[in-house]
């Protein structure tokens, strides 16, 4: 196809400086079509517009769709049964933090935008467009007209403002505080008119649109004045489903919301069934009691992995484990010792052993491989026992030393801790393992242990991990890392709006962290779900959300 300069000029007309900058990057071939779509969506250009610009530049006009599962067109009218994790407590959208809870709220609740798990591109949801000002310190969101809640009341800017104010309330603990800390305050959300909301940030933030997308799972939009502690009784939201019944500890049933803005909802009913552990979920799938199992780990799911009767829904995610080493305490206060520890690990073998390969290698920094801003030219750290021993000698530990490692009894982590112990032994570091239940670990050892291995869930952008775990005074800085150069780079990264700049700064951060190695991240493991082969149209995210409005049986 040929470039159409006239069409391109028409489309550019009225665009802001930032928008034109991104268009220029694409026209000049500095970013791919995929990057163009992604960056454009971040700053609020609609997908149809992006597609039209891409066509005018000589590319095909098609947008990616987020769909997973079997090929074929799903049929309407099915009653789908989904096995999931039991929520740990009452369903309060502002306070839930667990997988069971977040899956529940996103059945009926929706976000301003949706992070497409296949492309990491933001898709419009309750907002049709969003754009930053020149320095990305103010973001303006245009709401989708005609959206109603499941009780028929129209959604307006008042509801959006209320929802955000509740989730930035400084007087009550809310789970989204970890995202909004240093980014958005309670009075930073302002209604412009019934269909427009402005977010005035504490500092410029190029990734803000991701921070309030579906990645921030608490940020569903609820009616103005909703008592969050009572939301569980109604599950009121704008989504494709509405609540039929909810029984804590047992399950929930949802019916289609026929006034949903997104069009036809295929399933006739969703029945979510709660399970305490994975094994009965897998046997329920094999026995035909459920159609889909949301969120599984490979260990224990061998019967359904690589089985032609089932479809594995594999979504890349940034879930990982951080092995922090106290940079303010001997022997870890010497970076050579930290590097040596990092070099002792065989990361591909670890990924295979713990996740049967459903993981990507980590390079000891918060930039997961699938993040668009990750600078993949930074060399991947690999096991090198010889060099590790040399570094230990240089650091004054030719015979090694003994230390303690604290971690939690959660998922694969105690197995990983054993692997770390064995790897360290090979270079002369003798590790005493202390594996506690989660409550004790988080209370007594997480931020104070000389070596601490902790879990981190998925996030769509690295901002929270960059700041909270490694900046001076970061709330989750278990390594007690204090590096002014790092802090400065993070500030620049957070403020950067265009991808090339983000990538360039990311490269500097990654290189710095490879040198300093305050914590080790050996892998980012995938988010896995599984369905019967005959079910299609299931969309899952790295966060563990599952979208079923377009799901149903498919013909072979």
């Amino acid at each position, binding site marked *: 196809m040929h470039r159409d300069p006239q069409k391109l000029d028409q489309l550019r007309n009225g665009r802001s400086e930032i928008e034109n900058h991104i268009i220029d990057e694409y026209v000049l071939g500095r970013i791919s079509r995929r990057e163009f779509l992604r960056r454009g969506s971040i700053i609020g250009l609609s997908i149809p517009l992006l597609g039209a610009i891409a066509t005018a530049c000589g590319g095909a006009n098609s947008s990616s769709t987020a769909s997973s599962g079997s090929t074929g067109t799903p049929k309407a009218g099915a009653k789908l049964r989904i096995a999931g994790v*039991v929520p*740990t*407590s*009452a369903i*309060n959208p502002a*306070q839930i*933090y*667990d997988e069971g809870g977040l899956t529940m709220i996103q059945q009926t609740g929706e976000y301003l935008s949706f992070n497409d798990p296949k492309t990491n591109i933001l898709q419009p949801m309750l907002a049709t467009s969003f754009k930053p000002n020149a320095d990305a310190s103010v973001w303006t969101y245009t709401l989708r007209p005609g959206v109603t809640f499941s009780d028929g009341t129209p959604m307006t800017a008042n509801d959006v403002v209320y929802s955000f104010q509740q989730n930035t309330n400084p007087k*009550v*603990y809310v*789970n989204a*505080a*970890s995202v909004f800390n240093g980014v958005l305050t309670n009075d930073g959300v302002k209604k412009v008119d019934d269909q427009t909301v402005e977010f005035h940030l504490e500092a410029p933030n190029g990734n803000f649109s991701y921070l309030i997308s579906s990645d921030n799972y608490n940020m569903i939009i609820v009616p103005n004045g909703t008592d969050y*502690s009572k939301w*569980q009784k109604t599950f009121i939201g704008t989504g494709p489903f509405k609540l039929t019944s909810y029984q*804590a*500890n*047992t399950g929930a*049933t949802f019916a289609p919301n026929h006034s949903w803005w997104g069009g036809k909802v295929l399933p006739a009913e969703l029945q979510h*069934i709660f*399970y*305490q*552990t994975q*094994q*009965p979920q897998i*046997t*329920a799938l*094999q*026995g*035909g*009691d459920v159609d889909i199992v949301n969120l599984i780990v490979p260990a224990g799911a061998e019967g359904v992995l690589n089985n032609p009767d089932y479809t594995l829904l594999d979504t890349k995610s940034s879930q990982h484990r951080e092995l922090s080493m106290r940079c303010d305490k001997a022997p870890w206060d010497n970076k050579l010792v930290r590097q040596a520890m990092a070099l002792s690990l065989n990361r591909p073998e670890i990924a295979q052993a713990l996740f049967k390969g459903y993981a990507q290698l980590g390079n000891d920094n918060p930039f997961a491989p699938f993040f668009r801003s990750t600078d993949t030219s930074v060399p991947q750290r690999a096991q090198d026992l010889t060099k590790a021993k040399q570094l230990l000698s240089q650091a004054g530990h030719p015979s090694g030393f003994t230390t303690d490692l604290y971690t939690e009894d959660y998922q694969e982590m105690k197995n990983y801790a054993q692997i770390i112990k064995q790897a360290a032994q090979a270079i002369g570091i003798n590790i005493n393992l202390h594996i*506690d*239940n*989660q*409550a*004790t670990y*988080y*209370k007594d050892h*997480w931020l104070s242990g000389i070596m601490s291995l902790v879990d981190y869930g998925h996030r769509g952008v690295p901002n929270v991990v960059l700041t909270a775990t490694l900046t001076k005074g970061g709330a*989750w800085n278990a390594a007690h890392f204090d590096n002014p150069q790092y802090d400065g780079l993070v500030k620049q990264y957070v403020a950067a709006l265009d991808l090339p700049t983000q990538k360039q700064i990311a490269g500097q951060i990654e290189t710095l962290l490879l040198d300093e190695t305050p914590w080790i991240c050996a892998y980012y493991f995938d988010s896995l779900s599984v369905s019967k082969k005959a079910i299609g149209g299931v969309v899952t995210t790295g966060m563990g959300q599952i979208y079923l409005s377009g799901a149903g049986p498919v013909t072979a």
Partner: protein
Amino acid sequence: MAVYILKRVGLALITLWILSMIIFWVGQQLPGDPGRTILGNLATPAGVAALDHKLGVDRSIVTQYRDWVTNLAHGDMGTSYSYQAPIRPFITTALVNSLKLALVAFLICVPLAIASGVIAALKSGQWIDRSISVFGLSLLGLPEFVSGVFLIMIFGIWLNVLPVGATPPAGAGPLTQVYHLILPAIAIACVLFGYIMRMARAGTIEALNSDYTRTAVLKGLPTRTVVWRHVLRNALLPTITVVATQIGYLIGGLLVVEYLFHYNGIGSLTFKAAQAKDFPLLEATVLTIGVVYLVATLIADITYTLLNPRLRIGGDR
């Protein structure tokens, strides 16, 4: 008899009161706290403290216990910390589920085990006796999570003749509910069969060797009459006691089976309450199990007394 029952009820109440104090104190020793469990590990200490204060768990244990007992005396089981909902419906649902499962397991296991034990005793020393005894002993050593997995694999997945989950669809009728309970009930029955069978066998052999049985035989009574009227009545007395002591396990001890077969019984509810440090729910579940156990034991004692006229408590001799 009335005095006896009253005395037993009084003792039961004292036992339950002591049990409640023990559980309350033990629950306090569990790591973590309710506010942290509800808000998550990353919640700020201030947020956790605020929620703990709202829940009242930062008060002294004596104050908490006193308030709880006072409410219970008025029939109020309280509100679950983690579910933020009244406890009574959770207990009722879980208890009913456990009773259903226990009943089906009971109906499968007890008649089978008693019949097997009696047959083994009647054929003592023969191959039938040895086969039944070895079979029973083998099952005794098989944990329910092992037998459960085998049952699921064979009947639920390979043969696909029985459902793998014990929870029936909503609105299911009695037959469907029983259909879903067959596999877990068999897993439980496997655990109990050997124990009950051996007690029945031992009791029957002792009764067969007794003077009254010899007299009945010498009187010329048919074998069937001797067994039904004289042997069984005495042989099953210790078996009744054994069965009654298993009621507590059948109601509250089936955590593994409940997890394996995905069944919301009182065992898994108790475990969840302990994990969440949900003290009101934990207290309620444990006391419920205690009440069931004490009632079952009381019924067993009364039945034992009624069946054994030699025991006269407070009566004429």
